[in-house]
């Protein structure tokens, strides 16, 4: 537990009392800074601070109040106030309250000081708003993070004056290698059997030991945020949100509708909250079974893959039976859900849950008893607690390294306050710990669904009429299978003015470098898979300092030169 003064043990997280407590804490802590503190929608407090005091405010909230970096968003508000704005969203897990540090950036001098050295977790999202909104960063090395390589400099898609369908001609960028590496760089990707998505890891090895990792992602950047701000309407966005990721899509669409409902103050009927929570947990079960199968396949144990997915098929059919589609459920709409879980469907749900529980229990201990699987999971891909805390990792990766973080407990939402469940916690931080966390979570989800089905109230399932006032700010978060999924929203006319999605894998990829260093090459695929990466959610690039702490400016490395071989 954190040592921050005035433990909030007795305060109900996310309640009015907690928000009031945090507000006083902020006023006391930031008393000497010229700040404006006011309540935003739901459980968030906005701290407006002038640009030159951003670092002090961030330091106070992140280090003194022990807040976790959730995300940050740049926004082009020149139409409204003639400025760019940067929002840093930090979460106080102990109180269940979000603190949004807002900084106004003048149009002609679009620069903002970095807080990546204070809060390393914010490293990537800073680079993102530098790419997409064009707000530069001072006080740190910068490089391109999100935009494709052949994208011209100076064209920032998330600026309001750039049309969403712009297609600039490709710009040839020479591949300069500033790192003199004579050891072979092993390209893992973009098309590699262990990775079912195009991402690109370059492992620098000495013999079979990985000495360093270079990751180049962003193959799946589809410009979703730009489409949502310029083409799609409020009603259509849940369907694009659901397709941010093909495994945890429902988390994104739930997070989006909750953000809009919180901003507009829409009262969602309680039955809809229950249905959303049930379908979220069904998605967690299918996602964890899927991951268990893929992990077995990577370790060469195909029987494990086949049997876990045999069990998972029942959950996919159950999801289709409840929502109408195997994966893209499409039942989330602003104000509630489109499909009801009526009485005669409940027995079928319970029957499938019993089947999954029984089968997974005895399959799990067969899987973990296979000598190779057990041997290659233990002790590989270690992530220590301090490193995990520094990088603000989320989900099973955090819970396997001793960080007790679960959005369902820290920032209670939907119907989770009515159910009791245990959050598995391990401290070894290796691949086996992450596996065990996921298996235990799976059984917890089954018990959560049973409790929800018992206590589900009657009543209708959606609100038809609602008013969405523009200019309101809100933050919503959901515990996706891979971790905390945070959506930041500023409402606008007919469609959101700014909608920022921070998927869980976004926080976990930087931790990969720590896990992969000095490990065996053969363990790289299983360690990469152990954070259960979902690149279509994330899509970011990270630059890795060469071992030995020397910081080098790195451009794209021409793999062919380094490895001396031809990559097909």
């Amino acid at each position, binding site marked *: 537990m954190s040592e921050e003064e005035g433990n909030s043990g007795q305060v109900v997280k996310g309640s009015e009392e907690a928000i009031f407590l945090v507000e006083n804490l902020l006023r006391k802590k930031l008393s000497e800074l010229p700040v404006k503190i006011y309540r935003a929608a739901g459980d968030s407090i906005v701290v407006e601070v002038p640009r030159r005091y951003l670092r002090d405010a961030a330091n106070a909230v992140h280090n003194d109040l022990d807040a976790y970096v959730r995300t940050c968003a740049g926004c082009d508000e020149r139409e409204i106030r003639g400025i760019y704005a940067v929002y840093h969203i930090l979460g106080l897990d102990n109180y269940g309250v979000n603190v949004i540090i807002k900084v106004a950036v003048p149009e002609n001098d679009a620069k903002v000081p970095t807080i990546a050295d204070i809060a390393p977790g914010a490293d990537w999202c800073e680079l993102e708003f530098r790419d997409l909104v064009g707000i530069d960063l001072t006080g740190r090395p910068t490089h391109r993070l999100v935009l494709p390589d052949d994208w011209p400099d100076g064209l920032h898609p998330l600026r309001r004056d750039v049309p969403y369908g712009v297609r600039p001609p490709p710009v040839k960028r020479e591949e300069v290698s500033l790192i003199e590496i004579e050891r072979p760089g092993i390209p893992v990707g973009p098309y590699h059997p262990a990775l079912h998505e195009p991402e690109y890891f370059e492992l620098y090895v000495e013999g079979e030991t990985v000495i360093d990792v270079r990751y180049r992602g962003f193959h799946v950047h589809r410009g979703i945020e730009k489409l949502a701000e310029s083409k*799609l309407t409020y*009603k*259509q966005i849940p*369907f*694009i949100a659901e*397709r941010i990721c093909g495994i945890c899509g429902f988390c994104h669409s739930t997070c989006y509708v909750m953000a809009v409902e919180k901003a507009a103050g829409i009262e969602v009927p309680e039955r809809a909250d229950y249905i959303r929570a049930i379908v979220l947990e069904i998605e967690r079960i299918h996602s964890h079974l899927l991951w268990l199968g893929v992990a077995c396949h990577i370790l060469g144990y195909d*029987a494990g893959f086949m*049997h876990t997915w*045999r069990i998972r*098929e029942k959950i996919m*059919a159950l999801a*289709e*039976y*409840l*929502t*109408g*589609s195997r994966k*893209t459920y*499409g039942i989330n709409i602003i104000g509630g859900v*489109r*499909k009801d879980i009526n009485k005669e469907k409940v027995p079928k749900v319970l029957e499938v849950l019993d089947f999954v529980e029984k*089968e997974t229990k*005895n*399959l799990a*201990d*067969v899987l973990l*008893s*296979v*000598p190779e699987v057990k041997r290659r999971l233990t002790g590989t891909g270690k992530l220590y607690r301090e490193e995990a805390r520094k990088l603000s990792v989320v989900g099973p990766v955090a819970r396997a390294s001793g960080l007790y973080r679960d959005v369902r407990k820290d920032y209670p939402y939907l119907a989770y306050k009515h159910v009791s469940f245990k959050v598995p916690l391990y401290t070894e931080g290796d691949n086996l710990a992450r596996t065990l966390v996921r298996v235990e979570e799976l059984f917890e989800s089954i018990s959560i669904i049973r409790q929800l089905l018992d206590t589900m109230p009657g009543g209708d399932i959606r609100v038809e009429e609602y008013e969405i006032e523009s200019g309101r700010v809100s933050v919503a978060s959901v515990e996706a299978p891979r971790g905390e999924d945070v959506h930041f929203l500023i409402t606008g006319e007919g469609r959101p003015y700014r909608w920022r999605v921070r998927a869980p894998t976004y926080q976990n990829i930087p931790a990969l470098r720590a896990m992969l260093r000095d490990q065996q090459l053969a363990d790289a695929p299983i360690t990469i898979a152990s954070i259960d990466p979902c690149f279509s959610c994330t899509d970011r690039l990270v630059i890795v300092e060469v071992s030995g702490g020397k910081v080098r400016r790195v451009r794209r490395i021409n793999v062919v030169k380094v490895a001396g071989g031809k990559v097909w």
Partner: protein
Amino acid sequence: MVKKLRFVKLISVARKARTVTRKYPFEGPLITEEFRGEVRLDPKKCIGCGACIIICPPNALTLHDEGDVRVIRYFVGRCIFCGMCAEVCPTNAITITKEFELATLATEQLLRDLVHERVKCRICGKPFLPAKLLKAANDDIPGSDNYIDVCPECRAKLGLKGILEHRMG
């Protein structure tokens, strides 16, 4: 020792589970009655209002006003099978089927068009809205019979002329 050989238990897991393969296409697909498949537009009920076109997130349903015809084109290839069009259609002309065997050799085979005849304006003769839409609008708005078949521009002029006459009266 027994704990070491527990992985052999896999044989008993497999024997209990037996072979679960569903021999598709010889046996039926693993489908439930709630599955949302291809969407079908019923020509008899459709009035060409375009509500489904506005709501369709991937623009699979598009509206083309060419010459004296309004085409409502449904491109199955881009459809995401969310079923929102069926929900917003005022005349329930859109039904969701269970069809998923849609593979084809060319994307043209995935187009479904509904062609509406557009009514020509009584004054300027320019085609503007489908007949059924005008009829539906006429039934809803009482007393609109005399200028229902006039295109928006002419109707505006008529209205303006009416006001001028009234004021100049």
